[in-house]
């Protein structure tokens, strides 16, 4: 069979969403090298606190050691491989293996080998050489903890690059910081790990179609809601998208309100001055009158802050913040984790409304997610056919959108327009670089932005 003609200069082979070989290569080329989000510092505030997470398909313990340093260890005994932690979270100064009892400090050092002299003879085993296996680098920004197996990887700050400025908009604007509220919900999605990330990278194109029912239900701000927020309302929402480099992306959509000064609708007014203090004027402008801001940190973490209307009754609006992570399981299966974050010390009544704004729309049981997930699952279902897998996808949208005015002061490559596929191209450009697939296989990943 001849290769299907590619209808543009940029595409990705459909089999990327359902092929075992591509998947295995991703595990090596991407998940062994890229920085990956593992936890938020608020989840492990005290010495000994730990949570169980994954990097690629490997389970890791994220733990705060007795000196307060965050450590990440592969959750497997160096002896013969039994997992050390079986709980999702807890507190431990030491981890003791259930098989032969080797004991590790939460720093990862092997402290005790049971019957060592009997079993290995005097000097027969050097404990110093057998600490828990740990990622080459662990670091955090804005409370977000990342780790990478690659000692050659750039520093976290360099890896994040321009996306850090956008992460600050969501995670860096609360004077008292933010915290993850409770245990994350986890679920299995019968979709390739990339599909949801592509969407959250900045797909402003799907919203009015996939989420059409949400408009009918009043969960999106309509003219009816907007006229109550400002005297002067423009007819159309506007949005920008950002290629922040390294496969990281962002989309920011603004409520169409013509107002002087900053208006952080969806937060109690008492919180607004704090945001002005924490954010630069350019960042304030990005977050004032925000409808939605969402993006992805390559490869598998996404974040969103979103203004939702009428969530618990008429005129009860709120913003919420969320992180999602997708762990690859196989080519058509992933595990998704859902983290709801709240500003520390926020007014409890508002915090409740924010939680409802999240749960009822973009939480794991939220109606937006139910509709989105059908699309993501469908992409994998329809990409494993012997013919369908050979077709290219079309991701040419938004190429003609103009660059944003430079005086805006947003970092990265910023474009006016969010009904676009440019963030998806940015993701796949980075994906293709790292995958380094044989020529002809990575069907035409041209350089067009």
């Amino acid at each position, binding site marked *: 069979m001849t290769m299907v003609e590619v209808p543009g200069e940029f595409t990705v082979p459909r089999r990327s969403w359902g092929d075992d070989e591509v998947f295995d290569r991703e595990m090596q080329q991407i998940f062994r090298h890229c920085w990956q989000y593992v936890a938020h510092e608020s989840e492990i505030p005290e010495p000994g606190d730990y949570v169980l997470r994954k990097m690629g398909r490997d389970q890791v313990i994220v733990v705060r050691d007795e000196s307060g340093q965050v450590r990440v260890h592969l959750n497997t005994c160096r002896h013969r491989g039994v997992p050390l932690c079986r709980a*999702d979270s*807890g507190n431990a100064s030491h981890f003791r293996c259930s098989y032969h009892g080797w004991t590790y400090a939460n720093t990862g050092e092997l402290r005790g080998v049971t019957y060592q002299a009997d079993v290995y003879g005097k000097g027969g085993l050097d404990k110093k050489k057998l600490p828990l296996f740990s990622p080459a680098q662990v670091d955090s920004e804005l409370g977000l903890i990342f780790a990478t197996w690659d000692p050659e990887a750039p520093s976290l700050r360099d890896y994040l690059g321009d996306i850090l400025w956008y992460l600050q908009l969501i995670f860096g604007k609360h004077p008292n910081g933010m915290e993850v509220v409770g*245990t994350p919900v*986890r679920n299995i999605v019968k979709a390739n790990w990339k599909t949801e990330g592509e969407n959250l990278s900045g797909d402003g194109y799907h919203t009015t179609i996939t989420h059409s029912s949400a408009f*009918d239900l009043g969960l999106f701000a309509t003219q009816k809601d907007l006229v109550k927020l400002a005297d002067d309302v423009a007819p159309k929402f506007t949005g920008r998208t950002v290629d922040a480099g390294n496969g990281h992306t962002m989309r920011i959509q603004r409520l169409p309100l013509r107002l002087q000064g900053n208006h952080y609708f969806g937060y109690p007014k008492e919180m607004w001055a704090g945001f002005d203090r924490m954010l630069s004027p350019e960042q304030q402008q990005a977050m004032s009158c925000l409808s939605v801001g969402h993006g992805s940190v390559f490869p598998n973490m996404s974040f969103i802050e979103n203004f939702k209307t009428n969530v618990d009754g008429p005129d009860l609006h709120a913003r919420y913040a969320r992180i999602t992570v997708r762990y690859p399981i196989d080519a058509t299966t992933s595990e998704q984790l859902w983290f709801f974050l709240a500003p520390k010390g926020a007014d409890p009544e508002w915090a409740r409304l924010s*939680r409802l704004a999240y749960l*009822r729309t973009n939480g794991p*049981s939220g109606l937006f997610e*139910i509709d989105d997930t059908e699309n993501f699952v469908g992409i994998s279902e329809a990409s494993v056919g012997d013919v369908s897998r050979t077709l290219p996808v079309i991701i040419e949208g938004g190429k003609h959108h103009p660059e944003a005015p430079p005086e805006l002061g947003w970092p990265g490559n910023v474009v006016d327009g969010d009904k676009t596929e440019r963030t998806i191209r940015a993701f796949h450009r980075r994906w293709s670089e790292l995958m380094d697939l044989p020529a002809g296989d990575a069907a035409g990943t041209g350089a067009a932005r």
Partner: protein
Amino acid sequence: MTAEVVGSRADVKRARLGDAILHSEISQFLAYESELLDDRKFHEWVEIVAEDFVYQVPTPRTPDSPFKPHYDDRSLLIDESRWSMTTQWFRRFDEDIYEAAWGENPPVRFRHLVTNVRVRLTDDPDVYEVRSNIALVGTRQSDLPKYITGERTDRIERRDGELILARRWVVLDQVVIDFPQLRILL
């Protein structure tokens, strides 16, 4: 709010259980309620639910001790009221909207299996705390069915002679939930 309903396991032995007639009446009520859900007769379901109804599902987890609950009530999977279910959840099944409510069209077929109904009397003679075991089977399109299990704690009240569901709290057993969708009325 949650503690008062979930209570501690210590009260199991000395709970005052309802008599056979009351047990039968409440079991029938729960079976009827399940029928309405399985048949997607949501407007009728709303009729047997209290005005101030709250439905919550905490996040399941594997704790680090068998003496801790296997859920975390600081974070929730579901938190709904009668208002939100009527205006946001069930509304998506109405004729004028369902075609674009993609996740419900075609709808996942749900089957509620409710067993081990325990009716506990409270200090108020018209308020019962009813625990039951639930298995929900969900079948999406041509996929094989999947199931999820848990324990319900319901507050059922008698108002003007009729039983109504005033509160539902469901603790799930599965931590990494593998089910056709998570918008589930257990």
